[in-house]
C-alpha cells in the first residue's frame, strides 16, 4: 500500500544531521539574525510524523456523526474541532505535537449565520428568484472577507510548542485573490487560471507563519503554467484516445440480426464506460496537480531559517486514492476514517523540514491582548478552502 511504502518505520522522530555541502545552496535560507546558523554550520533534517490510527479515529468519527445527527447539526462545530485536534495532535515534529484550540461556540455561530444565509437563498430562489441573485452576489462579495477571517482564525488556533501560528495576509490581498482575479478569468478565456491558482497558493504560503518574521515565498507563476499546460495536453490526448476508441469499437452491422443486438448493447454500455473513463481521468489529473503544486509550493517557502521539502509522488497518491475509494465503497463508508488516516500519514510523512537553527529558538509574535480577543471571536467562519 502506498502509504506504507514510505520508510515510516525508521525512527524519523530523531534529528538527522546532514553536512551543509550536501544540500543545494540555492535553497538554503539565510538568516543573518540567527547566530546559531553561523556558529554550527550544520543543517538539521527533520521529518514530520503522524501517529494517529484508523481504529482510534473511527471511534471519534462515529461518535461525532451520531451526536451531530442527534443534535440536528449543532454538534458539528464540536465535531470539527475534535477532528482537527486529533489530526494536529498526532502530527509530531521533533517529537512534539501540533495542537488546535478553536472554541467550538464561535464555529457554531459562523455555521448558524451561513446556514441562515443558505436558507434565505433557497427560500428566495423558490419564491422571489430575482432577489436570490442579489443574495448570491452579496455572498461572493463577502467571500474574500470570510476566507481572510477563516485563515486568521485557523492560524490563531493552531499551535506548536505552545506558540500560535499567525496569518499575516491582508484583506486587500484577499479581495484581489478571491474576487478580482476570478472576475478576469472569463475575460481572458481562462488563460489567467493558472495565475489565479498561483496567487491563491502565494496568499497562503507567504502569510501562514510561525514565529515573528514573515515567510519568504519565492514561487512564480511560470511552473503553474507548465503544470496546467501538461494537464491540458493530457486532456487533449485522452479525448483523442477516447474518441478513437469509440470509433474503433463501434460495432459494424455485419448481419442484421447480430448487428442490431450489438448496437443496442453498445449504446447501453457507452455512458457507463464513458463515466468510468472520465472519473479515472479526473482523479489522475486531480492527483497530478495536487502532487506537483504542493511539492513546488513547499519547496519555495521558507521562514526564519527553516525551509521545506515535500516529496509527494503522483503514483503513491493515485494508489492511495484508488484503494481508499474502493475501501470506502465496499464498506459503505465505514472505512472513511481509515482512508483519512492513511492519507494524513502519507502527506505528513512526505514533508521534510530543513532547519539552520534550533527549533527551540522561536519566539511568540507580539500581540496585544485586545487583538488576540478579536482574532478568537470575530474569525469565527471556518471555511475549508481548497488549497
Amino acid at each position: 500500500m502506498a502509504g506504507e511504502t514510505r520508510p515510516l518505520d525508521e525512527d524519523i522522530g530523531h534529528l538527522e544531521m546532514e553536512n551543509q555541502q550536501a544540500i543545494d545552496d540555492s535553497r538554503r535560507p539565510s538568516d543573518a539574525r540567527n547566530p546559531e546558523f553561523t556558529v554550527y554550520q550544520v543543517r538539521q533534517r527533520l521529518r514530520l510524523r503522524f501517529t494517529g490510527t484508523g481504529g482510534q479515529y473511527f471511534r471519534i468519527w462515529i461518535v461525532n456523526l451520531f451526536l451531530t445527527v442527534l443534535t440536528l447539526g449543532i454538534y458539528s462545530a464540536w465535531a470539527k474541532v475534535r477532528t482537527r485536534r486529533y489530526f494536529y495532535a498526532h502530527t509530531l515534529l521533533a517529537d512534539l505535537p501540533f495542537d488546535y484550540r478553536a472554541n467550538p461556540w464561535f464555529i457554531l455561530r459562523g455555521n448558524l449565520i451561513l446556514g441562515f444565509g443558505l436558507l434565505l437563498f433557497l427560500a428566495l430562489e423558490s419564491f422571489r428568484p430575482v432577489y436570490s441573485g442579489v443574495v448570491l452576489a452579496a455572498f461572493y462579495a463577502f467571500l474574500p472577507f470570510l476566507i481572510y477571517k477563516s485563515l486568521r482564525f485557523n492560524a490563531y488556533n493552531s499551535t506548536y510548542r505552545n506558540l500560535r501560528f499567525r496569518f499575516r495576509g491582508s484583506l486587500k490581498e484577499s479581495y484581489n485573490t478571491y474576487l478580482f482575479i476570478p472576475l478576469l478569468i472569463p475575460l481572458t478565456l481562462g488563460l489567467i487560471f493558472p495565475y489565479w491558482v498561483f496567487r491563491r497558493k502565494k496568499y497562503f504560503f507567504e502569510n501562514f507563519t510561525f514565529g515573528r518574521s514573515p515567510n519568504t515565498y519565492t514561487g512564480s507563476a511560470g511552473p503553474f503554467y507548465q503544470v496546467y499546460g501538461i494537464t491540458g495536453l493530457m486532456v487533449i490526448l485522452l479525448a483523442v484516445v477516447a474518441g478513437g476508441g469509440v470509433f474503433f469499437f463501434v460495432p459494424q452491422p455485419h448481419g442484421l440480426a447480430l448487428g442490431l443486438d450489438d448496437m443496442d448493447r453498445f449504446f447501453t454500455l457507452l455512458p457507463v464506460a464513458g463515466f468510468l473513463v472520465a472519473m479515472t481521468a479526473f482523479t489522475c489529473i486531480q492527483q497530478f496537480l495536487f502532487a506537483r503544486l504542493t511539492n513546488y509550493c513547499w519547496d519555495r517557502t521558507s521562514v526564519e531559517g527553516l525551509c521545506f521539502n515535500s516529496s509527494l509522488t503522483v503514483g503513491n497518491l493515485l494508489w492511495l486514492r484508488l484503494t481508499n475509494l474502493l475501501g470506502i465503497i465496499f464498506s459503505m463508508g465505514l472505512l472513511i476514517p481509515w482512508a483519512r488516516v492513511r492519507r494524513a500519514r502519507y502527506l505528513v510523512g512526505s514533508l521534510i523540514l530543513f532547519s539552520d537553527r534550533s527549533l527551540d529558538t522561536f519566539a511568540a509574535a507580539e500581540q496585544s491582548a485586545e487583538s488576540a480577543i478579536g482574532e478568537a471571536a470575530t474569525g469565527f467562519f471556518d471555511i475549508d478552502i481548497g488549497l
Partner: protein
Amino acid sequence: MNTFTGTYLDGRSSKPVQVGITFEGTTLRLQDCTAVSPDIVVPLQNCSATPPLGGTRRSLILPGGARCETRDAELLALVDSHRGPAGSVRIVNFLESGWKTALACLLGLFLCLWGFVAAGIPFLAKMAAVAVPAAVTDRLSRQTLAVLDTRFLEPSELGADRSAHLQNLFHGLVDRKRSPANYRLELRKSDQVGANAFALPSGLIVMTDELVGLAANDRELIGVLAHEIAHVENRHGLRVLFQNAGTLLLVSALAGDMSSISAAGETLPTLLIESGYSRRFEKEADRAAGTYLIRMGWGTSSLQNILARLAKTAPIHPAFALFSTHPDLEERIGYLKKMDRTR
C-alpha cells in the same frame, strides 16, 4: 511525595524545558531538570488539563498561558480530580473510549437517520406546506401552468358541450368541500405529455384531451379527478417540494462529511428516498379516490380500468422502474380491489 515529569512550554518561546513536578498539598512545583530557570509554583486550583482525545498527549494548562505536556496518568488524574472536564466532555470521552460504545453509536446513527427520513422530514414538510399562504401557492401554480403552456401544452380541442360536461363533473366533486383550495379544472391538449392529469398546489387541476379520449365513461374520469383532488387536499405537491429539499439537505450534509465520494453516490440515495415519498402520496391519493367511488356505490373498478389503460399507453421503461414515482400498476390495482372487497 510523588514527583512527576513533564515538558514545560512557557508560551513565549519555543524552547521546551524538561521539568519535574511535585505536588505540595495545594500547589504544584515545577522544577527545571537542568536547574537553569527558577522553580515555578502554581496553585493546583488554577490548573486544568486539556481534555483527552484518542491517544493524543495531554497538557496541564497553567496560569498565564504556559502549558506543561505530560504523560503521567497519575498527575493528570490529580488535576482532573480538582477541576475535571465538564460532564458533556466526559460523556463524549466515554463514547469514544471503546468499541462497544462506538458500535452503539453506529446503531444509533442508523436509527436516527431512519427515523428522520421516515418520520422527521415528512412531518416538518407537512408543517411547512400548511404554513404556505394561499396567495403564494396561487402564484406558484399560475406560473407553473404558464411554463407548461408555453412548452408542452396546447389549447383543448374538446367541444364546448364536452368541456362543460367535464366542468360539471369536476364541480360535483369539489363544490361540497369546505377547503381553502381554489379548485379549477383546466383542459389542455398535448402530444408530448399524452394521456395525463396532474394537480398544482393551489387546486388547479390539468387534464389532457388524450386522457378524456382514453376514458370509457364518466366514472373513470371521476376516479382520476378524485385522485388529483386528494393530492391538492393533502398538499402533496408542496410537501414533496419540501421533503425533497430536506432530503437533499440531509444527504449533502452527510456526504459533505464523506467528501471523497463523488456526486453520483449522492444522487442515488436522494432519488431513492424521493421516489419512496412520492409512492406514499400516490397511494394516499388512490385511497381517497377509492373511498369516494365506494361511497358513491360504484366500486373502484372504473379507476382500475383507466389505470390499466393508462399504463398501456405509456409503458414504463424497465430501467426506470426502480425510480418510477407511481407505484407498480399491479400494486395499485390490487390495493383498489382490496378496498372493494373490504367495503
